[in-house]
Structure formats: structure tokens, C-alpha cells
């Protein structure tokens, strides 16, 4: 009944989803922001999407259940053109530190086109497998849906769709704050973005790359984050460079910025620039030189580390890009960045 009645409602003009300003996700105490941007006129990105679609169509890659219908449709019709028509895509992740020392991310994923297909994805995310809706509250005509409880604190607890952007946040309060920034009120005005150290760093960032970001070592955030990252990759690096040395190097790093550009359907080139305590810069550079030995050569290659004053520049290439993207998709939208 609701579907039928919707056919007869009047309002403003229709459009593709607007790409939100990533800064609208930044809070005063945020320490990191990462953005992935796929532009429609970017040929390497187009090639990457075509390859990914082929992987889906041939069954080499599987997407999460919430995307099953959309991926079946795309694969069934081999519609690479449709995928590309949906661009641009922007994925944003902004992190804050919780009192517990764990990071608390907010995600915003925006695909400009194919809003209808995205409705199917959204409807899949907001109900259980039996179709029972997850609980929700409404704020300024936007549903804020509470996702099932999860033991991983880095996973979001709410999802909502704001101006077509899938917004995943740690709590409804944060969602409301962001809605106020993204959706103008009746007076036509939106709430201002937050100011702070990260917002300042973000403002001066070059935003032309396919992926880019900045992280500031706000109140020892890097060290705290490193402690929370007890996984096989950090363990390998620890073993290679030494645990104390790693902790010291991380504590000495004040800020990191990075850019990533996709140069083919399987390779991306990354540059990370670290601002480090000048007294520690040489050792940090040396540490990264040694640390790269512990990296997976099937994923990371051509790494170089240079140091100049307080700046350590790390360059490397990511290969096997298609698989990396499919792996991220397989984790769902929350793994987007």
C-alpha cells in the first residue's frame, strides 16, 4: 500500500545522490580521516570496476547477503556500464578515540547513481534475514536504524541513509549531529562542521587523489590505536622492528598524510608522509625500512622510505587491487575504507 501511495506524492526535483563534504563527519576530537574517491572519468577506476564485475559474474568473488540482489543483477546482465554510470563513489572513515582506548569509527559511503539498487541494499541492511525490521528512531525524516549488537567496538551500531549516503555511526547522537550538517533545516541553513586539529589538517590536504587522508597524533592517539591493533600484521611488524622501537616511533610521529592513486586495474601507488619528532626522524625512517620486510610481497611492492628533516616519506605500490576491493566489499560497506 505504501509503495502504491508513494507514486502519487509531489515534492522537489530528483537527482543523483550528492557527494557529501567528508569534513562533515569530523568532530573536534577526531584524529583520523580517510577518503576513497572513485570518479566516473577515471580510466583505471573503470578498468578496475570491470574486472571486479567479471570476478563477481564468474563466481570468483562473493558479496555480502545485503548486496546479493544487486550483485546478481549486475552479474547476470554483465552491466559494467551500469557500475560506471553509478559513479562517483566516495567512502569516508573518520575515527575518534573512546575512553577505553579503542577507536570509534564513523563511515559514510556514497554512490551517486542507481539509487534504486541502493534501496534494495539499504532494505537488506535494516532488517534481519526474515525481513523483521531492526529498531529505529526518526530524526528529521531520516530513520536511524540500530544494528544488532556486535562485540567488535570498531563496528558501527547505527545505519541511516542521509541524502542517499549510507551513514554508519557509533551511536544515534552522532548520526543526528551529522544529519544536521548534511541536511539544511527549514531556514535553509545547515549546522557548521566541527573545528579542531584534524579539521585544520584536513583543510590543507590535497584532495585530488583516488584515496587520501590525514591522521594526527592527538593525545597519543597513534599509540593507543597501535595497542588496539593486535592482529597478525602488526605482530609481524613488531617482530621485525622490535616492540619498543615500534612504540617509540609511533609516539614520535605527530601527523601522517597519505595519497593513493589507482594507475591500472591491478595496481595503486601510495605515498605516505609522516611528520616526526626531528630527533626521532632518522630512526623512524630506518624502522620503516626494516618493517617493510615483514609486509606481504603479494600485496605491497616497490616500497621506498626517505627522510628529510622531520619528514619521512614512504612510497609503495599496492598490487592485487581487484582482490583487495572485493575483499572490502565482502566485508560490507563498513569495510569501505
Amino acid at each position, binding site marked *: 500500500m505504501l509503495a502504491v501511495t508513494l507514486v502519487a*506524492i509531489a515534492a522537489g526535483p530528483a537527482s543523483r545522490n550528492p557527494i557529501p563534504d567528508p569534513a562533515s563527519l569530523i568532530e573536534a576530537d577526531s584524529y583520523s580521516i580517510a577518503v576513497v574517491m572513485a570518479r566516473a572519468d577515471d580510466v583505471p577506476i573503470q578498468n578496475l570496476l570491470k574486472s571486479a564485475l567479471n570476478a563477481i559474474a564468474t563466481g570468483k568473488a562473493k558479496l555480502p547477503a545485503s548486496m546479493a540482489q544487486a550483485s546478481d543483477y549486475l552479474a547476470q546482465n554483465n552491466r559494467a556500464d551500469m557500475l560506471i554510470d553509478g559513479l562517483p563513489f566516495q567512502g569516508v572513515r573518520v575515527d575518534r578515540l573512546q575512553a577505553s582506548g579503542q577507536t570509534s569509527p564513523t563511515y559514510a559511503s556514497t554512490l551517486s547513481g542507481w539509487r534504486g539498487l541502493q534501496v534494495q541494499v539499504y532494505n537488506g541492511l535494516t532488517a534481519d534475514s526474515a525481513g523483521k525490521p531492526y529498531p529505529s528512531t526518526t530524526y528529521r525524516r531520516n530513520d536511524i536504524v540500530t544494528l544488532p549488537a556486535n562485540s567488535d567496538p570498531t563496528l558501527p551500531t547505527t545505519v541511516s541513509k542521509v541524502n542517499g549516503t549510507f551513514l554508519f555511526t557509533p551511536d544515534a547522537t552522532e548520526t543526528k549531529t551529522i544529519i544536521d550538517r548534511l541536511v539544511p533545516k527549514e531556514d535553509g541553513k545547515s549546522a557548521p562542521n566541527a573545528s579542531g586539529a584534524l579539521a585544520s589538517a584536513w583543510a590543507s590536504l590535497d584532495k585530488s587523489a583516488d584515496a587520501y587522508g590525514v591522521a594526527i597524533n592527538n593525545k597519543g592517539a597513534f599509540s593507543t590505536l597501535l595497542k588496539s591493533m593486535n592482529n597478525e600484521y602488526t605482530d609481524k611488524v613488531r617482530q621485525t622492528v622490535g616492540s619498543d622501537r615500534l612504540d617509540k616511533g609511533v609516539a614520535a610521529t605527530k601527523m601522517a598524510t597519505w595519497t593513493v592513486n589507482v594507475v591500472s586495474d591491478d595496481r595503486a601507488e601510495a605515498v605516505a608522509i609522516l611528520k616526526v619528532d626531528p630527533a626521532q626522524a632518522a630512526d623512524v625512517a630506518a624502522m620503516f625500512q626494516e618493517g617493510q620486510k615483514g609486509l606481504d610481497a603479494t600485496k605491497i611492492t616497490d616500497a621506498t622510505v626517505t627522510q628529510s628533516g622531520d619528514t619521512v616519506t614512504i612510497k609503495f605500490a599496492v598490487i592485487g587491487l581487484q582482490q583487495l576491493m572485493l575483499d572490502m566489499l565482502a566485508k560490507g560497506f563498513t569495510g569501505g575504507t
Partner: protein
Amino acid sequence: MLRKVSLLICLLALAFAPAVAQAPTRAQLDNQRDLLQAYSARLMEVNDRYQVFQKIVDLASQDQIDAVNALRISPTQAMDLLKIVQQNMPSGPMDDAAMKALQKTVQPQMEQLLGSDQFDLILQLFPSPQQKAQADAIMAEAANTPEGQAAYKASQALSAALTPDQRSFLQPYLDLAKAPTAAAPEGTTLAPSTAPARPAVRNLVNLRRTGAGDFFADVLPDQNYLAHLPRTYRVQGGDPNTMSALATSSGITVRLLGTYEGDVVSVANVGLLGSPALLAVGGSGTVWHGKLPARVVSANPPTVELDAGRGQKITATLEMSSKEQQAFQAAGQSFTVEGTCWMASDKNTLYDVEFTPYQAPNQAVQAAALVQVSEDFFNHAANEFLKGHKDKLSFGGPTDNLKFRVTDIGLTFAGCQPGQARVFGMGVLSHSGLDVASAQVELTGTVTFNGTSLTLAPVPGTLAARLNYPVFAQAPANWGTTLETIMGPEYAKGFAFALPADYQDQLTKTGLVTADQINGIKLETLPTEDRRTALASLSMPQAAGVAGPATNVLQSRIQSPGECAVVVPEATINNAIKTKLPGMMPIMIDVPENMQEQQGGVKFKQIEIAELDVAYANGAFKINNCVLNVHWRYGIFAGVEPGMKFSGSATLASTTDNPPQVVGRLTIDQVTFLSPHVLAMSQQEQDDIKSKLLKAVADYNLPLASNQKFAIPALSDQASLVPAGAGGTSAPSELLLQGRLAP
């Protein structure tokens, strides 16, 4: 892909699935219809009181609203979508495998038809799980209201009366009424709404009582000439005993005083004062409600002559309250009067009168010719078209459960601006014999004629759609606007009705009109509120250099209901005589075989009009001089002999036959014989011949070739335009030809 689209297709497939169960009997269908109306009325009561529908609509997200506005499905695409489902229906049983096969075939076709962008927009309309839950919560709240409980009870009664097939089809509708819950859901928001009171008016309605005990009042276009489509009101209030005594299942015509709003008429509570709210109109005769120009023919008893258009005059006596009498006295000698007229064999009486000033329509145009068409002519044509295009305007064969048929299409000028017309249609959806819904659609368009086609260009914001059964429910005006936008350019450019390709050539070949004149044809309309007096007038501009008085193109020349009239002004006829007659001279007229034989074996084979001085004036052809010669044959001999010359007049007239024949009639004022044989006779003999000749001419109706039928295959195989009469008028001086549609 896409579970929701699949669901939609499944529902369509189920609807189109062949009927397998035994059809319900007439009595069962009547009961089902009454229960369907009862249930629908209860739902409307819930909605009226708690605005449930609006609350559900308000759940729409901005994205969904945007999608609706971006949607573009042309009328052709909409029909093609239906056809895709119909054409791909499997012939066997509709099991899971058949359904999946159908989906696989249909979905790519739907996307191909609409385009990926539009298909994606449709996907955006599907509600989220949260929206569905919120809608369910609103419905659950409604279920706990007294009105909601009554609706649920009615839904159960209807469900029990339906066949399994019907119940399956109507289940989503039945599910709108939920069983009441023990406690109201949290956050109950439903609150009764109240509408401001409107003044009561007395209207002519058909009051009926259903088997379920509900009362409905129908405003029917057959009785109410201010309405062009039927409208049904639920009756609230009133004395149930009186209404039960009056109303039957088929209904009784009453003048009902009440407040007419939406789908409800609230019967006025008049107390002990004034006329009762319900006044039955009984006895033999006919009754109608309308609004007509009138002139007073008697002050006491107050009597008026009503101009009912199309040549119809009605003399009626007014029955008035003291307030109405005061208005009558203040209205003067001529006015427009709205009221209900009871026409008995001996007397016509006008009730419930309301007077407004009247101004005769006047649109003066230098016209070479004029075609006037009455609204009922158009509606006859529209329904002939309906008969001729049943297959295109309906679906569902004898073995199908679901059937749709267009039951009425038509045109009216009521409520339109000059130059505009409102076209309307009504269709009925039925399942297993039960009419489950009837809907009306109408739009107003600007009518233009460009020489080769007649075009109706929709006026933005005029598209209206409503349900008129099982209850009346008008879609909000902005929904129509949205639908217009959705239908896009194909709708906006309008609908063109092409005329036969060779008609211009045929007309111009006669030399009487030029192509420029045809291309300059203008359309004027007289949009009166009463359908009987409204008309459309197509006027052809006068040829260059032809002078004559301007023609009032809005003065009706239509003589009878259902007719059209062709009007040729005097100046046009005289111009044609002046330009065409010299080239036609001499005019040879074959003498009919049975009149050729003369005394002594001489045969008069032809009459030759050797000289003719004729002009059209005061509604007749004035023959100032006509010289006739006679072509004779006698055995192997033949010759031409002077006959006579005469002056007189000729008119066109119609016979009293059924159908009437258009004939020419000649009146001779003065005759002079030129025949040497006649002149050789005695004066007495000549006078005798003259007398016989004048009588024979006076009695003779010259059949005219224009009595032929003109087939109109564009309407239907049987449709044709037939002459219905002819004549002339002196003021203004015009030649008139009447036509009507047959059958």
C-alpha cells in the same frame, strides 16, 4: 533480482491467471458487492476520522518523493508494461516454476521498456522495513478505534462471502483492517480530526439501501445535467426509519438536503421547521436537475420558459419558498435558473430554484461556414468509439479471473474556459464477476484545429483521478500534477485526432473553399454549466473579398438532442452562386423515367436550365428569373424546344419520415410559357396547364443527393453521420443542415 519487483509481477500474474473455480451466482455477487461497499465505507470512516492514509503517506522519505518526481512513464509505456505481463503469461498452472520463468522473461523487458534509469527509480519507491513497520503500527492503532473495529468486522463479513479466488485477490485490501489488539501500541498518535461545517444544499440524488443496511446517494449524469460522471456519497445522519421506508436496493429519486463533502452527504437536521430533508420525487414523468437560461412567461403563477438547448424549450411553473420568491422577483424577466424540474404529462414544475443573471453568448466572426456540435453528439461519438474499440479498451477474456473494461468515455465543456474541453473516462475492474473497483479519470485540454487534425493539449494541473466504487475517493490535486509529470512529454503534447487525409482535397476541388480557409478554421466553445446548452463551434473564415454580416458562432443552431449543425451564411452562398453558377450553365436535369412519357408518345428526356438568376436571402433561394428548355424525343426524332420562364423561391426542408429526408422545395410566383405548342393553345388551356404545374411543383419534394450516409470508420464499423434535417433561417439569413450519428 529484486524481490519486490518479483512480488509485483507475481501479483499481476495471479490476477491474470485463468479462472478455474465456478463463478458466483447473481445473488452472491449482489451480496458481495454490498459487503464490499460496507467494508470500504467503514475504512473511509476510519480514514476520515483519523487521517490514516495521510499519516502513511507522510512516512515517505525525501528520496522516495524525489524518485516519484523523477519518474517518467508515458501512457504508451504503461500500456506496454501491462501487455508484457499479459503476453508472457504461461499457459499452464501458475506454480513456482512458471512464476520464476515469467519473472526471468519479464524483468529484462521491463527494464528495456523503461530504460535503466527509470527502472532504478521504480526500485527507489519500495518502502524500507522501518516504513512498513511504522505503517503497520498506524494501522494497528486504527484497529483499536471503534471505527477500526467496525471495519474489521466488515472485512470478516466480506471475506466470508468471497470465493477463494476472490479472497486471494482481495486479501491485501482485506488486510487493511486489522484485528484489534488488547492494548494500543505505544506512542498512539491517532486523534480524531474535524472538518469545518459547510452549508447544506438540496440536490437530486438516487437514494439506495444495500443489503448490508448502508445508505448511498448517487448523483447520476442521466438526471443531473450539471454532472458528467456519476458520484456516490455515503449517507450519514437522517431519520433511519424514513430512509428505510423510502430507499430500495435499486434506489429512489429524492431531493436530499444535506452537506455534500468528499464521499459523504450529511443529511441536514431541519427539525420541525422548513421542508423535510428528504423529499421523494414520485409518480410518472421525468425529473432532472440543471441550470438553464429562462424567461418569465407568467408572473402568477410564476412560470418560465427554459431554453434547454438543442432547440428544446420547456415551460415550467416554479414552486418556491418565500425566500426563493423574493429572489425570483429580483431576478427580472430573463435569467439563468438552477433547479430540479419534475416533468409530468400535464405540468412541469421547477423546485429548489436559484437565480443568476444571464447574458446571451455572442462571438461575432466573419465566417464562411460553421459547424456546431452539441455535447451529447460528442458523447454519442465517444461511446460509439468505445463500442468500436472494446478490445483496445479492455482486457480479460471469458476464462480470465480479472477483467477490466472502460465503461464510459465522453467530453464536457462544463467548468472549462472557452476553447477548452474536459475529456473523461470511467473503467471497472472485476474479479470472478464481482466489480471490485471503478475509477474515473478526467483532464481538461485546450482544443485546437490546424486544418488536418483536432488536438487536445492537456492544461497542466487538470488531470484528476478518483475511485467511485466501492467508495468515492478523490486523489489530491497535487497527485494529478505528479502523474502528469510522470507521463512526461507524450502526455503533455496532447492527443491529436487526424481527419481523413483527402478531405481537404475533396473540399477545395469543389472550388467553394480554399485550403487557406480550411487551415484557418477556428474552434470556439460555449462552456455552460448545464451539459444540454454547451456546444462547440468550428468556424471557417470568410473568403477574401466576400462581405457579409458577422456570424454569432455561439448562438446555437442545433435543432435536436444529439445533433450537429452545418451553418452556411447568406454571403457564402451568394458568393458561391456568383463564382460557380456561370460555369455550370446550362444545367441539364434528367427527367425521371416515369415522368418522361407525354401525350401522343413524345418523351421529355431532359430539362435544360438555360438562364438562372438566383440569390440567397432571408433563408431561401430567390429565383428572379429561370428559363427552361425541354429536350424531347419522338421516335427517331429529337429536339430542343423553349419551355418557360419563371420566378419564385426554393428552400431546403426535411420530411417527416424516419429517418427524415432532406429535400428541395420550389415555389413558383410567376410563370411565362415559351413553348410554341403551349402558346398555340387557348388561354383557358394555358391557365389550366399553369395551375396544374404550380400544384405539381408545390407538392413535389426534390430528393437531394446529400441524403447519403457518411461512414466514420474511425469511430466504429457501423458508425455513420446521417442527415437529420435541413432548412433556412431568415434572421440571420443562413442555410442549415442537421446531422446525427447512427446507429
